[in-house]
């Protein structure tokens, strides 16, 4: 499974989305469950999946899936595949 696929599954499972709702452009303000507790769940899931702990500032500053990718890539986790 590619890192993109892992992230897609993580976002869908964390925020209880339909697969069709997912995209890299998905933004926090468009997801009801992406609230403060959703951020906690997502951070837990990112650590389990990618081994990286968001700092509190990173976690609360994330506004979209693309932001997650950007932070993880800056930590050496590649999303270049496929």
């Amino acid at each position, binding site marked *: 499974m590619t890192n993109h696929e892992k992230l897609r599954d*993580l976002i869908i*499972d964390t925020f*209880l989305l339909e697969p069709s709702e997912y995209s890299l452009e998905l933004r926090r303000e468009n997801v009801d469950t992406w609230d403060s*507790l959703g951020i906690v*769940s997502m951070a*837990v*899931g990112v650590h*389990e999946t990618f081994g990286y702990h968001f700092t509190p500032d990173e976690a609360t500053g994330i506004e979209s899936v693309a932001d997650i990718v950007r932070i993880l890539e800056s930590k050496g986790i590649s999303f270049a595949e496929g």
Partner: protein
Amino acid sequence: MRFPEHPARWNVEQLRGELARGDAFLWSLERFRERATERLGVPSVAGLSEVPASARRLVVLGGGAMIDEAKVWRRETRPDLWLAALPSLFGSGAEASPVAVLNRDGVKKIEVDERLLPDVRVVWPELLEDLPPARLRAAAGDALSHALEGFLSPLADEELRGSLAEILAGLLALPLAPDPDWFEASAAACAAQSRAGVGLVHGIAHQLEGRLAGERDGAGFAFGHAKLCSLFLAPVLAFDRAHSPKLAELAVLHGIDLAVLETRAWQLFDGEDYSRCLPALEANWRAVLLDPCTRTNSVLVRPQHLAFFTEERFR
């Protein structure tokens, strides 16, 4: 022990002395009302709406739900009133917590507010006399769940986690018997976890307790909050361990003996009662996933994880 602050602990004699200053009333579970009225020397009221405007002191004697009702009522209606919380049983820790879990039209609502803290908490060990073993195991499960889930919470900082590790070890050292030390340890667990949140055990309990209202477990008791915590503690522990090394790593770091923890959790488990809960768990899994407590679980809980809890080994 570095317990986070919680209301001062009084004994019944200290409470009686305070109540003797006058204008004091008791709101009690019916089964303790006569005994408590006599022991405390104050009149009782049948409900909070009957507390007179002249009252200056109120004692609430009951379980967690009743204590939470009094805490919220005092904040909203009579913030000038001195409030003593006297738990009829340990476990909920409501007497020591700024959290109130309220049932409003069948929906659980959680409030966190320092103004909810009672002025004192009172321990009356004799109330544990005649406590049925099934009730005691349920209360122990509630207390242990508070300590364990607070300890594992992603919102706990290292200092709080250290306190919760000590509290957890203290709880595990207590016998499954009506020992009054359970009151102190469970109050500390609840006060500490209120600063970090809990996890999936509580998410399940909050979502199922109302939906299982009217059903009885094998001992003839309701599937209340404490009972559900005691039933799901061991399976959730197994789930957390199966899906993340976090529990094992933190246990080593803080000197928690996982074998002792797991043994105690399984002592509180009952396969037949667990099986009775499964249809409700399956029907309400999405609500469990959305519960605020589930969302601060130490391991991300995904939709497909329901299958873990319906495995044959738990039945």
